[in-house]
């Protein structure tokens, strides 16, 4: 098979086109704005899931703390929006007008220094990518250089998620505490709660996600991608071949963190607030589940997984407000028991079977090729 665009195979490109068509055409035509906005929210989790495919599905690095990066990205965006929403005119009822409301409730009388730069949107965008990236980089260096991996790494990421949650909740004068940052209204005077803004943000989210899919594909299609796969399956062998395994792991973990951060920032924009409930252990594990349901070795699978699980969550909780958690639990158990490679794994199996059947039919008409087609092994 000839590679398209250097790194994309034909069926990959077809898959991305189908996804783009579903997100950009089918869903906007089918759904009303409220449901579309929900899909937009689900898609922000898909960013995390794509990141997890890179670092877990390919790199073999299971992080149970992606909520940390999702939250940091989201909080950076929320800080900018909160400052804009806290102009002196709309906060004149406070003891100190012009600072965010939660600071006033916690007896702060001036904006803390680390909030100051968030008046700038450019800084916010940079911070949104670089702060989570840097944190992941530091964690990565500290862990992987010491060859901490596997379960121990997963536990440490959980601990970091727990620490950050406690920090945010404890420092409520600076962070809004358990309430989070609420009541975000405008971005440079543009009302993010209006209908037109919701449409625009949805399409922005889709565009960035598809861009992210291309980026991820590019990374996986490169030599680096092959090394990641090799590392996941036989780390020692890669190390003995003279590669510094730790560096690749740091890279892929940092990249996954930045994916999550973009998702978090888009979440804040579309939902209109950020709270510590996205940072902790439970949401971080949920994000791993999205990836697992979709298929951890498939970028597109992870996106569909995020959409499906979140849609199921919304649907069950609307239909069975008392029992929906049981249904969700059942769904996860069923997926893990019957489709260990996720939905993408099921599809892959059937593709092989369908392919065989097709070749068999075609074989009656034409002689079979002497050399069997080379298949890339995804699982």
């Amino acid at each position, binding site marked *: 098979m000839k590679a398209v665009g250097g790194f994309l195979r034909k069926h990959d490109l077809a898959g991305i086109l189908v996804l783009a068509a579903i997100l950009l055409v089918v869903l906007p035509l089918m759904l009303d704005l*409220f449901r579309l906005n929900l899909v937009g929210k689900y898609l922000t989790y898909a960013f995390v899931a794509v990141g997890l495919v890179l670092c877990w599905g390919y790199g073999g690095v299971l992080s149970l703390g992606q909520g940390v990066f999702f939250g940091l990205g989201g909080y950076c965006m929320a800080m900018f929006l909160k400052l804009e929403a806290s102009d002196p005119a709309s906060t004149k009822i406070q003891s100190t007008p012009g600072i965010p409301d939660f600071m006033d*409730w916690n007896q702060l009388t001036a904006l803390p220094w680390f909030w100051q730069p968030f008046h700038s949107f450019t800084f916010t965008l940079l911070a949104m990518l670089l702060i989570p990236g840097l944190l992941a980089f530091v964690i990565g260096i500290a862990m992987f250089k010491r060859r901490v991996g596997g379960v121990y790494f997963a536990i440490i990421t959980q601990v970091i998620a727990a620490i950050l949650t406690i920090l945010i909740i*404890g420092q*409520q004068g600076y962070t809004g505490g*358990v*309430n989070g940052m*609420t009541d975000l209204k405008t971005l440079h005077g543009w009302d993010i709660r209006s209908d037109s803004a919701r449409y625009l943000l949805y399409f922005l989210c889709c565009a960035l996600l598809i861009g992210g899919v291309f980026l991820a594909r590019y990374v996986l299609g490169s030599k680096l991608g092959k090394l990641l796969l090799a590392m996941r399956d036989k780390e020692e062998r890669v190390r003995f071949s003279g590669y510094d395994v730790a560096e690749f792991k740091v890279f892929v973990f940092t990249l996954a963190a930045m994916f999550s951060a973009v998702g978090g920032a888009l979440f804040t924009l579309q939902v209109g607030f950020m*709270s510590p409930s996205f940072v902790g252990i439970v949401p971080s594990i949920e994000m791993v589940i999205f990836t697992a349901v979709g298929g951890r070795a498939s970028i597109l699978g992870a996106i569909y997984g995020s959409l499906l699980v979140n849609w199921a969550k919304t649907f069950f*909780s609307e239909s069975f407000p008392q029992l*929906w958690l049981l249904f969700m639990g059942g769904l996860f158990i069923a997926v893990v028991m019957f489709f260990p490679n996720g939905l993408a794994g099921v599809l892959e199996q059937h593709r092989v079977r369908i392919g065989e059947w097709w070749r068999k039919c075609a074989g009656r008409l034409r002689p079979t090729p002497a050399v069997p087609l080379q298949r890339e092994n995804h699982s």
Partner: protein
Amino acid sequence: MSSNFNKDRRTLSAGLIAFAVAAAIGTPSFAAAPATKTINTTGLKITDTEVYVGQLHSATGTMAISETGSIQAEQLAIEQINKAGGILGRQIRIIQEDGASDWPTFAEKARKLLVNDKVAAVFGCWTSASRKAVLPVFEKENGLLYYPTFYEGLEQSKNVFYTGQEATQQIIAGLDWIAKTKGAKSFYLVGSDYIWPRTSNKIARKHIENVLKGKVVGEEYYPLGHTQFGSLINKIKLKKPDVIYSIVVGGSNVAWWKQLKAAGLTAEKQTILTISVTEDEVLGIGGENMVGHYSAMKYFQSLDNPNNKAFVAAFKAKYGKDAVIGDVTQAAYLGPWLWKMAVEKAGSFDVDKVVAASPELEFKAAPEGYVKIHPNHHLWSKLRIGQWDKSGQAKVLYESGLIVPDPFPKGYQ
């Protein structure tokens, strides 16, 4: 989608018969069901016989244990209203959504109820965090929320009615009482670490220092769910405050009160006043661990008045004889009734008209006795001091006069 609450066929047919009779008599004074288009000009989900409302609490997750009482009380009130003929001739149908103890989910479901279902009013939320999460949604979509929990104040929205007490109503009269009856001068403030306990303690401290001329000898906060109070109890023993003022919330209460008792700080040795323990919490803590301690609330299940007797009897008939009713449960019960009165006064379900008709409405059949809606959307209410007994019930020792709600108290900020 909807969880229609009124499944009692007889009730439904009784309502329909009442409606048919009203329609048959047909005189204007009896026409309980005015045309839908005149009472609903903003496209809410209202038919000629039904009006839809939303109910948005946590049915699952850590808050479910607290919010279940509110869910039950609101459903009881709506059932009673439906039995009495509904509102403007329409039976109330409930669309219940689960906030799942998760604030973003609350925001999502609030949008669903207002945008998709177009409900005429929503009864819901419990924690401040969930209210803060839905508030922008209600303001943007011009919805109507009846919020039942006592809370920190510092908020007032056109789209929300607060049927619990704001902080000054719950705090000041209680401190005055304990200072007067116990001669208390030194106070130790304890709380869970979030906005409500912190704001409440800020008000308490100002009142203790500026008005009561007393002294705050300590102020400590612990994360929600904290269970190790040993070091705090040791500090308290050293400082020997006249009163411990406790705003420990939720599950932490169980550990807190048990450890106090184990450390010998029983009611005979140490006066404790709390504003975060209702009958619901005592059920978890165990009455034997609370004996003799004081709570400041606007409502106790043991209130001795005819309204409350009828309410408690109806509640127990519906949810079992062991059901307990705490302050918030009673406040939640007020929501549907206050909404009914406002709609009937406005002659319309339109949110703007209901809001405009609400100030100064009096609800004389309230289990807590009597409440009136202030123009700032909070309620005039009384404060009671209850002393807990072994059975988990409180004996009401003191009752204040009606207190004006003041969500932005001057001199306490």
